[in-house]
């Protein structure tokens, strides 16, 4: 929920303990012999300036390898995801075409050191999507088309 709007709704029916193959993930043992999986998460790292006029630095695309160690009770199943936009969160722009799988359970994860793999050279175009940290910019830009075609 964000300001009275449900922007994310996940409905899952956990059924089975097998599901990593759907994600094309193959486990490898860690030093303790436990089964573990590796996921590389790509995230934008950004921080608004105190004056709210731009970012302190160019937003960066960060690649972060994460080692997932699912506990045996992790369950997989079919589910549904509903993404909804609010005035502050244009999350509904991401369409859910097809569900792959859902998983629920406890994990023992390790976040390995990440790397900056890119930078956003057009912060104005990015600012609308910085909605998880800032409300003002998405609201002000919500009805403004800043694409090159405009």
């Amino acid at each position, binding site marked *: 929920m964000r300001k009275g709007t449900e922007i*994310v709704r*996940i409905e*899952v029916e956990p059924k089975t303990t097998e599901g990593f193959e*759907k*994600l*094309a*993930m193959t486990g*490898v043992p*860690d*030093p303790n012999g436990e089964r573990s999986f*590796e*996921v*590389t*998460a*790509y*995230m934008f790292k950004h921080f608004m300036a105190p004056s709210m006029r731009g970012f302190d630095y160019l937003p960066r*695309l960060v*690649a972060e*390898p994460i*080692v997932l160690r699912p506990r045996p009770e992790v369950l997989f199943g079919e*589910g549904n*995801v509903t993404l909804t936009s609010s005035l502050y969160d244009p*999350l509904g*722009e*991401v*369409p*859910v*075409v*097809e*569900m*792959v*799988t*859902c*998983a*629920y*359970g*406890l*994990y*023992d*994860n*390790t*976040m*390995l*050191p990440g*790397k*900056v*793999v*890119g*930078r*956003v*050279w*057009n912060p104005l*175009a*990015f600012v609308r*999507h910085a909605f*998880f940290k800032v409300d003002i910019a998405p609201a002000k830009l919500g009805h403004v088309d800043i*694409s090159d075609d405009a």
Partner: protein
Amino acid sequence: MLYALDRNELKQLRNANWTAELTGAEMLAAVFRTDQKVLEQILPDRYVHRLIPWPLRSSRTIPKLVSELSTMRLPYSFKQSTVAAQGCIVYRCPSMMTWQWLGDVKSSVTQRRWQNQFRLRSRVPRLSEAQCVRVLKLFV
């Protein structure tokens, strides 16, 4: 506390190899396939320039770098990728994050190998297009 450390201890701290451990993280993950065309609009390639793959260090020659960039599709290059983009939402991860010191890499060969194993596996050129999982990770 940091100010209680002497110069040598501070140096060791800066050179330490830290990883973040999230033990007992309760996670609900929903992996879905989304529309690649839409992602191109949201995350167009022109936003992100000067992509820097990890293993392409200064020791590599420029022709080698150009060759590797042109022959593979980067997983975060939604526009060029031929594999349908996937989205992933990780919901509720309330466990406390703790930082674990892996120790000095020079004195801990096993830990270094283990870490390198994953870091190498994470490097972009090691992933084929079929193996690449595009993750648009939205933390809620």
